């Protein structure tokens, strides 16, 4: 029995998001979708988290922040890029202040498409991340 699959704690970080995907992430915690049944807790603290959910893209200001948060997470960890902005910059990809998707700064494990991504897709993405986490744990 893999314990890390039964108790994944997430850290939710908002890059340059318009907050659409953020609201969908938070919707997952509400009684309608209730991800706590999978043991998921939204911690605000990288040191407690297993999965980093990032919405929005990166820009010059938040690149060091994202790096620091990723660094402060203990292994095994997985990154889920939620929404198309986190994947590639989305509709804002050509803007002067947007560098691009999260993958430009940290290694991403799961991409969840959508604008805004639907809660069902987000939960699906997190579940896929659980398998990846288990793989990483075995390798340690």
């Amino acid at each position: 029995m893999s314990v890390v699959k039964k108790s994944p704690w997430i850290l939710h970080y908002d890059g340059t998001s318009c907050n659409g995907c953020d609201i969908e992430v938070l919707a997952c915690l509400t009684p309608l979708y209730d991800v706590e049944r999978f043991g998921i807790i939204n911690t605000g603290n990288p040191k407690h988290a297993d999965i980093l959910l990032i919405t929005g893209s990166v820009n010059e200001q938040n690149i060091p922040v994202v790096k620091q948060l990723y660094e402060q997470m203990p292994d095994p960890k997985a990154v889920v890029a939620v929404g198309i902005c986190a994947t590639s910059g989305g509709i804002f990809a050509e803007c002067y202040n947007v560098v691009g998707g999260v993958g430009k700064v940290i290694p991403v494990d799961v991409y969840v498409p959508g604008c805004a991504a639907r809660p069902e897709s987000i939960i699906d993405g997190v579940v896929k991340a659980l398998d990846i986490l288990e793989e990483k744990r075995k390798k340690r």
Partner: protein
Amino acid sequence: MTDIIKQKQGDECMGAITGLILFPLAAALGILLVKNDEVRNMIVRVGAAGTAVLTLVVVGLYFKSGIALSFRLEKAIEAVMAIAETAIAVYVISIGIKYKKYVISVLSFVQASAMLCFEFTVKHNIEVKHAMIFDKLTAIMVLVIGLVGSLICIYAVGYMKTYHIHHKEYKERKNFFFAVLFLFLSAMFGIVLSNDLTWMYFCWELTTLCSFLLIGYTRTKEARNNSFRALLINLGGGVAFAAGIIFIGIYYKTLELSVVTSMKPEAAMMIPVFFLSLAALTKSAQLPFSSWLLGAMVAPTPSSALLHSATMVKAGVYLIIRLAPLLGATPVGKTVTFVGGITFLACSLMAISQSDAKKILAYSTLANLGLIVICASIGTQESLWAAILLIIFHAVSKSLLFISVGSIEHQIGNRDVENMDVLLGISKKLALYMMIGIAGMFLAPFGMLISKWVAMKAFIDSNNVIIVIILAYGSAATLFYWTKWMGKLVSRANMNQQSESKFHLDEEIPITILAGMVVVSCFTFPLVSKYALIPYLTEVFGRTALIPIGTNDIKLMLCMLSMLILLPISFIPIYKNDKRRKVPVYMAGENTGDNETFYGAMNEKRKMELSNWYMVDYFGPKRLTLWSDVIAAAILVSGVIMMIGGMA
């Protein structure tokens, strides 16, 4: 037959006790006369070591069977005392006039003339069988004064060197300082050894004088004002003491403390007991007489450690412990208990709002003295057990804390607790000893906690419900201010700061020894209880005393103490082989990397500043001092009314 033997023994062996009192005096004289710094420092060290050795000799000789002494040269000794008293009175009166503190002059005049009158008239007709008594309680007090006192004197050597380097504006009068310290030690020995109340009174006033001289050492305006305040309040207590003695002498025709305490607490006896208690309360700086102790913190740290925490203020509670059979549930006893109670509560709360280390220690001293006063005045076997243990543990821990704070002040340049988070980087040893000292003040399984535990049981057993509740609140406040100080000591801010001055061996050795004593005393308190406290209490109460804590509990506490020592030691190999990945502190991702600064708005580097809570609006002295003084004064007034009513 037994009397002759005891008397003979007294003649032969009283040399040791006389030596104990006279040796520090001789050292004081030597220090005063020698000009050379290094030679004088050696005299101080030898004097301190000699005092300690003499203490151990005296206790070793007389601990088992005790001794009661009468002196052949009593008349001569008393003549010397009378001359010294007059000289001191003249000095104080003239100083009072010179600095326009006329109340002081008046008090001193009243006190001296009353006592001298009494001494030359009534006293001649009173027979004093034993001028000095050495029992188990005396042994404990002598040990505390001799050992802790001598360690502080040695500490003072190193401290005063740096003190005058840092404070070039104060005139160097180190020979005067050390001489007064040793004179004080003599006087303290005199107080605890005396059975004749006039002798005790003389030494009592000597300690007042020493305190006055030491507080005013730096001769600044602030020091002078504080020293006069101390003198005023202590002189007031001295007048009360004199009144008590005169009453006892005239009415009961005795001058011996042992005779007084074996009498019944009838209504007439309450008057001198009240006066004596009043003297004790001023000496131990209970509310509303506390302001002098708080002001005395301007003095150099050795005097704060020696006089104003470990020994002189203990003289007051010592007197109350001696008077315990006459206090208890009597009106005076209840008054004293509640004065101690309000002091304990108010000062524990006010200590939370302070950030000056010496002020925190001063408030804590006041609170703990309040606790000892409560225990002593309740007067049951258990509470006296707690009171005496509190004296021992408090003297050791508090002196350790004071001298550590003194050294820390020299190392980091100030004595604000907020700045002590750099201490781990500067001096690991000092940080560790401070933590031992603080833990010794309130944590299980250290001594103060054991005493508080027994005190709690004693209060409930004697149905003092209000006092128990005061103890509960005071303990909670105590925990708060000590733990947040400890927190500052364990945080590792800015590990690169350098120390500002040398940490002398003269400072380090007493601190280390005292830290060791704190730990050892926690292990050995069952022995102290068995061989000193229980016999003393059995003697005072006339029936076998029982140790208030069960053997099972004692075993568990020793277990806790061992865990407390072994667990950190066992972590050392783990700590040394630490291969964990180090990550920065969480600052919302904006940590600049050094764990001290973060990126603020506009990407500007800003320093993180962490400080403790002081809750000044709730617990500040501005709010609490007035109320607590008023309540304490009201308690005293109601005590007087009840006492007068009891006589009607």
